[in-house]
């Protein structure tokens, strides 16, 4: 029995910023390190974690059947074929929207923490019931945001709520960073976002078309040792989460051509 299970909520407030993609990639990356990891899809109204992990055809039961004792936890857990250290548990299916309460969520998570070292909870968007249920069962949180005003504003609201629930630590992942736009000062910089939200930065993820390709296939980028920018970012985040000291990728160094050098020169502060 794992007693020091890390129960981490992955949330953002705003939808579409990359919670589920981060959950899938972190889950795979941690499992690859030999850590037993469960990913819990708390967003069962609009569940997608199964799709990103390529497990959509293997779900038979959900956490609801486990709590009703109509199946055992082992039957509901979907083990990843290539990374058997990773298991997915859907909280429920979209047809049973109203059943889950904070108590239920806490019972599911406490069952999971008996056998896993990490439980990653993919939180639904918004700050209503689904969010409250997921928070009630969590100890730590990763807030995902994009360098866009709407995403940062929603992240701020969520951080306030996490604080009132005593979630600690809360760390930030800045997703979909576009180095060229930051260089031309048309996008909030990393420092802008961390200053405004005042959270420690767990990592950033560079915008990368390969993320879409990997979701098309249902194979997270971290699964097959891909070396694309986003894959490196996700692996680094998993390592940092696990306590390894890995320097941040510097987005301004991601390009090395003449144009990139000129861009860097243009953003040098003169006074």
């Amino acid at each position, binding site marked *: 029995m794992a007693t020091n299970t890390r129960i981490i909520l992955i949330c953002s407030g705003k939808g579409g910023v990359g919670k589920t993609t981060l959950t899938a990639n972190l889950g795979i990356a941690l499992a690859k390190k030999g850590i037993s990891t469960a990913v819990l899809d708390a967003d069962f109204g609009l569940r997608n974690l199964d799709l990103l992990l390529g497990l959509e055809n293997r779900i038979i039961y959900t956490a609801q059947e486990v709590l009703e004792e109509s199946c055992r936890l082992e039957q509901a857990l979907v083990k990843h074929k290539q990374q058997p250290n990773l298991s997915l548990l859907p909280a429920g299916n979209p047809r049973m929207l109203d059943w889950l309460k904070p108590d239920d969520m806490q019972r599911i998570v406490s069952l999971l923490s008996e056998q896993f070292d990490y439980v990653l909870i993919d939180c639904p968007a918004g700050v209503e019931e689904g969010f409250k249920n997921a928070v009630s069962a969590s100890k730590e949180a990763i807030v995902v945001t994009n360098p*866009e*005003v709407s995403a*940062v*504003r929603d992240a*701020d*609201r969520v*951080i*306030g709520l996490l*604080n009132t629930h005593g979630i600690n630590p809360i760390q930030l992942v800045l997703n979909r960073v576009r180095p060229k736009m*930051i260089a*031309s*000062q*048309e*996008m*909030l*910089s990393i420092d*802008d976002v961390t200053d*405004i939200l*005042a959270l420690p930065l767990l990592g950033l993820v560079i915008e990368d078309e390969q993320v879409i390709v990997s979701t098309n296939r249902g194979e997270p980028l971290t699964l097959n040792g891909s070396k694309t920018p986003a894959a490196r970012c996700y692996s680094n985040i998993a390592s940092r989460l696990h306590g390894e000291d890995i320097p941040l990728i510097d987005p301004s160094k991601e390009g090395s051509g003449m144009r990139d050098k000129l861009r860097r*020169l*243009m*953003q*040098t*502060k*003169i*006074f």
Partner: protein
Amino acid sequence: MTLRDILNKLLRRQEASANTARERLQLVLAHDRTDLSPDLLDQMRREILEVVAKYVEIDIEEGAVSLETEDRMTALVANLPIKRDASGALRTKELTDDSESEPSKEN
């Protein structure tokens, strides 16, 4: 100020948008975090000015009350310039008896 800013100024182009985004966010977050609408803030500003004006003579036009945020702290910052007379002394209500300069009647 960066090279790009200078170039933009010289070419009379619009300022790069990241700065605007940061400033807009800081303002909207200050309001989000306090749950104060601009209307309520304005009302509070007027009342604070009235109270302060009872004790010292302030420049009502110059007075500003705003919300500022740093880290996760939000502060209400009031900037109320106090008028000085020719001798350089602060003009408090006790010192100034000339009723023409009083902005409002006290009761």
